[in-house]
Each structure stands twice: as C-alpha cells, then as structure tokens.
C-alpha cells in the first residue's frame, strides 16, 4: 500500500514539475521566436545568456506589484477567477500520457472526455473575471469568450470523437497504443480542425478577439494586476502545453516515432506544435468576431463531420 502511495506521489510531483516548467519554456520561446521573426533580439540581459531568466524576473516583478481589486467589483468572484482559469490545465496534464507502459499521471478510462471537459471549465475563469470586474471592456471580453467557446467546443469534440472511433477507445493511452503511421493522413482534417478549435478556445491569435488590445484593452483581464494577472498569463501558456500535448497524443501518435525514443517523441512533437502556435501569432492578423463565428459554423463543423464520415467508412472497409 505504501509503495502505491509513493508511486502516486511521484507521478503527481512529476506532473506538477512539468506544469511549472513547460509553460515557462514556451513563454521564453515565444519571446525569442517572435523577436527573431520580427527582426529584433528579444530579451538579452536577464540571467546573462540570451536573457534566459527574463520570465523569472517578470515573475518577481508581478509578485512585487500591488494586488488591486476595483471598488465596484464583486470581490470574491474577482479574486477566485484566476485560480478557476489556471487549475483545470493542471488537472488535464495529469491525464496526458507521455510514454509507453503507464508513463502517465493517472490513466483514465474516458481520458478524451476528461481532457475536453476540464479544458472547457477553464473558460469559466475568464467569464467570471469579465463579469466581476465591473468594467465594460471586461464585460465585452467575457461575452466574446463565451461566444467563442460555444462556437468552437463542438468542432473540437467532433474531431476528437473521430479519433476515438478510429482507435475504438476513449482512453488516451489506448488511442496512442492503437496508432499507426497512416493515421496521420487519414485523420489530417480532424487534426487541423482540433488544433484550430483549440487555438480559439485558448484565445490565441488569430482568434484573440476576447483580449483584442486595440479594441477592448485586455478583455476580461483588464482590471487585474500583480500575481493574479500573472496567473491568467500562465494559464494561457499552460493551455498551449495542454493543447499541443493533446494534439500530439490524439493525432500525431504520441511516443511513436521512426526510431525508439519514448517520452522524448511526445515532448518533441509538443514543442514543435507550440512553435506553430507562436508562429501563427506572429504571422496572422486577428479575425473579426463575425468572421470567427462564420469560420466555426460554416467551415470547421462541416469539416469535422466529413472527417467522422470518412473515419466511419474506412473503419467499416478495413474490418
């Protein structure tokens, strides 16, 4: 029994360490990649070598700032919102398998549904922040967040359902176990739909209408300062980790690779996808709210349904 609990504890510590380190790595990569794509250097001073400690310094700065709650705000909900936004991503990481043979925080029977359900809960944090700030820009940001989530949850679910159909299971390790290389072209449409919808759910550019700084300052996060603001930023990067890891596990074969590597493959694919997320931020203009809704309902959902039909047909043919 004690051996079991030590095992559980070790797994949770490993997941927590990943949760603390990976978002920061992606944040620093974003600084540098954006800088180089825009023909500048990015942070160069903090820590000495190419400004590697910039995010640590940012963290120290955020911790020193005053934690302001607006006078008219709904205090408790305002203060609770950052935690509601951040914690779900930690929970999802627990269920994502990184390597073969049970290298996962906790193997769940219905892992796909768990991951998507809990990711959806994270958006409640933005909604709470948007309403409780007593600020019209925040409220607009919250509204846009909700509209976006409602539009993009469906294609994301349908794309994930297609993979679950292909693998014949809804458990994340089970899906990776069933993976073959030809799944990549077979499920390509689903993968693109899933990744795009995930970007929209995370409110990353080009789907960052809810935080469009030129229109509504910073959307639901406008009134936040100090550590609470940092938690919202951290939740965005943790969301990138979760989305990229999920796409890797569902569509890119997780730890499978041309030669043996185990969890290194998962990490490598996740990081490449995270680079794509950053790349899109630098290169694509922001969509307008109506364009965004139109894309979801007239492009992504039909594509996802077509993918499900294709999956079903192939599944019946090869049986």
């Amino acid at each position: 029994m004690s051996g079991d609990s030590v095992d559980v504890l070790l797994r949770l510590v490993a997941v927590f360490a990943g949760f603390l380190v990976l978002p920061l790595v992606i944040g620093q990569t974003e600084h540098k990649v954006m800088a180089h794509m825009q023909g500048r250097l990015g942070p160069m001073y903090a820590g000495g070598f190419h400004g590697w400690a910039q995010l640590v310094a940012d963290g120290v700065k955020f911790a020193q700032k005053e934690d302001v709650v607006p006078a008219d705000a709904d205090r408790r909900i305002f203060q609770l919102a950052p935690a509601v936004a951040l914690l779900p991503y930690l929970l999802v990481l627990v269920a994502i398998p990184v390597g073969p043979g049970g290298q996962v925080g906790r193997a769940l029977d219905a892992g796909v549904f768990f991951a998507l359900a809990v990711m959806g809960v994270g958006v409640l944090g933005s909604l709470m922040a948007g309403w409780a700030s007593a600020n019209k820009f925040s409220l607009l940001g919250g509204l846009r967040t909700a509209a976006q989530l409602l539009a993009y949850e469906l294609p994301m679910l349908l794309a994930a359902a297609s993979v679950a159909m292909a693998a014949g299971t809804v458990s994340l390790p089970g899906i990776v176990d069933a993976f073959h290389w030809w799944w990549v072209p077979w499920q390509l449409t689903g993968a693109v739909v899933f990744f795009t919808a995930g970007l929209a759910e995370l409110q990353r550019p080009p789907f960052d209408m809810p935080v469009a700084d030129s229109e509504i300052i910073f959307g639901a996060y406008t009134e936040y300062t100090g550590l609470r603001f940092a938690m919202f930023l951290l939740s965005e990067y943790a969301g990138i980790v979760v989305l990229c890891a999920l796409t890797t596990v569902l569509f890119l074969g997780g730890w499978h690779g041309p030669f043996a590597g185990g969890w290194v493959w998962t990490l490598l694919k996740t990081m490449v996808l995270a680079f794509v997320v950053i790349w899109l931020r630098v290169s694509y203009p922001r969509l307008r709210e109506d364009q965004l809704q139109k894309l979801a309902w007239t492009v992504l959902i039909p594509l996802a349904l077509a993918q499900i039909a294709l999956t079903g047909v192939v599944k019946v043919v090869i049986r």
Partner: protein
Amino acid sequence: MTGTSTLAAQAHGFLSPTGVEVAFLLIGLVTLAAALLTVTTRQLVHAALWLVVALGGLAVEYLLLTAEFIAWVQVLIYVGSVVVLLLFGLMLTKAPIGRSPDADSGNRWPALVVAVAAAAALVWVVADAFRTTWIDLSGAVQGTTKVSGESLFRYWVLPFEALSVLLLAALVGAIVLSRMRRKKEGER
C-alpha cells in the same frame, strides 16, 4: 422479496459505512446546499456559479458510483456548455453586480411544489429500481465506457434514438420560432 432485501442489507450493513459511502453522503449534502443557494441567492451570476458547484458535485457522485464516463460527460455538457450559455445570457442582459431585489418571478410556491413532486418521483423510482443493488467496489469496474456503451447501444438503443429525434424536433422548433419573429419585424 423482503427476505432477500433484508439479507442484502445485513451483508453490507447500514450502520458501519465505508469511506466511499461517507464521502458520497457528504458530497451529496454539499450538492444539495449549492442547489438551494442557486435558487435562493439574490445575485444572478452567483446563482449560475452555485449551479456550477451543484453540477460538479453531481459529477463527483457519478465518479464515486464508478460511472466515470457519465461523470465527464456531465462536466462537459453541463458545466462546460450549459452554464457558459447561462452566463452568456446573463452578460448580454448586463446582470448587475450585487443584489437584484426585483429578481423574483412570484412563482415561488408553484416552483416549490413542482420541485418537490419531481424529487419525490425521482427518489421513488430510483429507490424502487435499485432497492438492494450494491456496487462491488473491489471487483471489476461496472461503470466503464465499455459497459455503458454496450448497455446503451444494445439494450436501450430505441429510447436513445427517440431522445435524439426529440432533441432534433426541439432544435427545429427553436429555429422556426426565431425566424417567425424576424418575419413579423420585417413586415413592420
């Protein structure tokens, strides 16, 4: 009949509950309290957020009953979509921060009667159906996706399909209603 039920009760016992049973009861109480707060609070958005707690509590109860798939679907549909839709509606109507004293439809007593009747019917049906059924927590898990899927699509496929037709009818009805109003406005 009474003989077997007494036997089953004796085999498990009502007086020395296991840890899972205690947790089930406590979370049930939390869920009930959150549900009561949902309908009694005077702050509209707080009501929606208490609803999140109540629905989340229900999901945990499903988990304790080993129905993992149902639990995650509960979170996905109700917490992730229905409550988001509710909050969207509240934000569109600019729900104020603080109390809304006029947030009372005057239907308090009819609502209470309907709620109590629905609760009584549900409790009676569930208690009657599962009178002496105990979930064996040490054996094979009985609520896995595989088991749920098999019983749903093998034995309950007709009600399942009938429900989806009902939902489709509701969807078509909603579209028709919203288009009728637009046509009337166009005539003006």
